[in-house]
């Protein structure tokens, strides 16, 4: 049933540069320390978060509540290890915090919490909430004549939730061209393929018909992400949806497109060896 997008094929074949491998080492170091974590959902997301935080968002890590900052919400909160890696690397909090992931006194839980983690705009984890909050943030910018932009990262399984489509209608009604939805389309949710659980196709047409300007790309192609994200809104007067074709578990051969790596508990010695081969020593 799934249309094979050329972007999906290039996502599978896409090689990762040293910064992408470094960020994966941070993510997997947290998983090793905590003995748990959503590995697959974080690894599919890394380049999307990387380009946002490295190249697109107008943010100041030393002043995370700067009123002029761009807002970014990780609506698929279970992908938080990717976000934590970027926030730590960009200086929102010390890198050493990553080792405490899910610990009793850590600021970093299994889902990101507003007020606990500098740089986190909203507590997420329950799926289907982020886009509506983003609509509120974007509408507030419009009403207050502020220039910040709002980016919301959604999972493909997450958009099973009806509330996402309520939010999409609301965003289109208000013509929120200061709102960008990025969909991490790795085509694999917790149980198995999105096509099996609840088919999403034709996904681009869905977003288009809900009033969004739609872009599709290989979500691991850092250059393509930069190009598209620097040209938002794609169409003035419309919210933008960027469908990022990704690979769940990208960068770890054992984890790629493998639902068993959606959430991982303790990593075995052989798994750790395989990770070192894939992303380098950590």
């Amino acid at each position, binding site marked *: 049933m799934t249309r094979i997008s050329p972007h999906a094929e290039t996502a599978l074949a896409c090689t990762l540069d040293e910064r992408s491998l470094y960020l994966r080492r941070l993510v997997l170091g947290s998983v090793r320390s905590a003995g748990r974590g959503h590995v697959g959902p974080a690894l599919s997301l890394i380049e999307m978060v990387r380009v946002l935080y490295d190249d697109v968002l107008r943010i100041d890590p030393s002043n995370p509540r700067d009123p002029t900052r761009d807002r970014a919400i990780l609506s698929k909160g279970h992908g938080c290890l990717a976000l934590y890696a970027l926030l730590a690397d960009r200086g929102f909090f010390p890198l050493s915090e990553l080792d405490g992931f899910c610990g009793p006194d850590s600021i970093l839980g299994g889902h990101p919490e507003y007020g606990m983690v500098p740089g986190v705009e909203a*507590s997420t984890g329950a799926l289907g909430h982020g886009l*509506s909050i983003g609509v509120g943030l974007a509408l507030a910018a419009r009403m207050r004549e502020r220039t910040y932009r709002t980016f919301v990262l959604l999972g493909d399984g997450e958009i099973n939730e009806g509330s996402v489509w309520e939010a999409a209608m*609301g965003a289109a009604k208000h013509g929120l061209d200061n709102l960008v939805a990025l969909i991490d389309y790795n085509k694999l949710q917790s149980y198995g393929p999105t096509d099996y659980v609840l088919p999403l196709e034709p996904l681009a047409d869905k977003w288009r018909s809900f009033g969004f300007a739609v872009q599709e790309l290989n979500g691991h192609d850092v250059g393509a992400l930069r190009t598209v994200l620097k040209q938002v809104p794609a169409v003035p007067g419309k919210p933008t949806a960027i469908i990022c074709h990704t690979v769940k578990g990208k960068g770890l051969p054992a984890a790629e497109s493998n639902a068993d790596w959606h959430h991982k508990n303790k990593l075995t010695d052989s798994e750790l060896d395989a990770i070192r081969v894939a992303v380098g020593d950590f």
Partner: protein
Amino acid sequence: MRNTAMNMVHKLAARDERVLYIGSDPGAGTLRAMSKEFPKRHLIEGISEAHIIGMSAGLAMEGFVPYVNTIATFLTRRCYEQVAVDLCLHNLPVRLIANGGGLVYAPLGPTHQAIEDIAIMRALPNMTVVCPCDADEAARLMGQTLDWTGPIYIRLGKGGDAVVSKAEHGFEIGKAILMRPPGDVVMITTGIMLQRALAAADLLAAQGIRAGILHMHTVKPLDTKALLQAIRGIRLVATLEEHVPSGGLGSAVAETLIDKLGSGLPAMLRLSLPDRFMHNYGSQDSLLKKHGLSADAIATSIARALPASYTSSPQLHST
């Protein structure tokens, strides 16, 4: 009560530019005057309660004070996770104005009857729950909602409820109002049960039973101090609510008394709706009567319970 509360949103909007009205798909003409005067702050967002709550959270994060308005059941059951996570977890100043609390929509059946709303809203950390008794009290409440920290659930009755609140009593969120001094019994009420309690107190007085009334318009945070004062020397505490027995006013009072008194608890009578959905229609009044919440039935239940309480816990309640 509803029109008064709505008009107060308009007045608050005139006073404070942070105020927004957000309706789902309200009746035609709702807040028409506000929509003309402040069109950008009068938002109609469709039958999408989950989205509306999340959107309101986003607006509140940016400093607005959204007043979200729809029918009570849709504002509680439909979007409970959004209320819990987006509003309460973030402790945002969104006001939920719930039309038709209790059995106001009796003719429309159980999908429209908010019989457990107090319980589920009260269970959420950071949520404030207020049930005004009449239009005047609703107006006094609304005037205090601008700067209250965190979300508020406002349970409205229907239009035309008898006005029994008094301006001289004032109004403060979280402060109960002693409407009649405690005697043999004290009735604790919330919402429009106050009207029935007043009538029941007159009926009891005719039988020589002195009945006090403590109006607990704010169910959360519960006014513990006023409650403990009101039960001094009484023989029976009777709670009255248009709500199922689980988790509402009666539960809140019982929990508080247990927590504060430990032993030596007063005899208690919890008058409420039964623990079931209503399958009768008619009117709010007819359903309340059917379930023992008319003034007559309340007085009878209290008079019947009172002698028993004399024997079951004879020397109570000095706190």
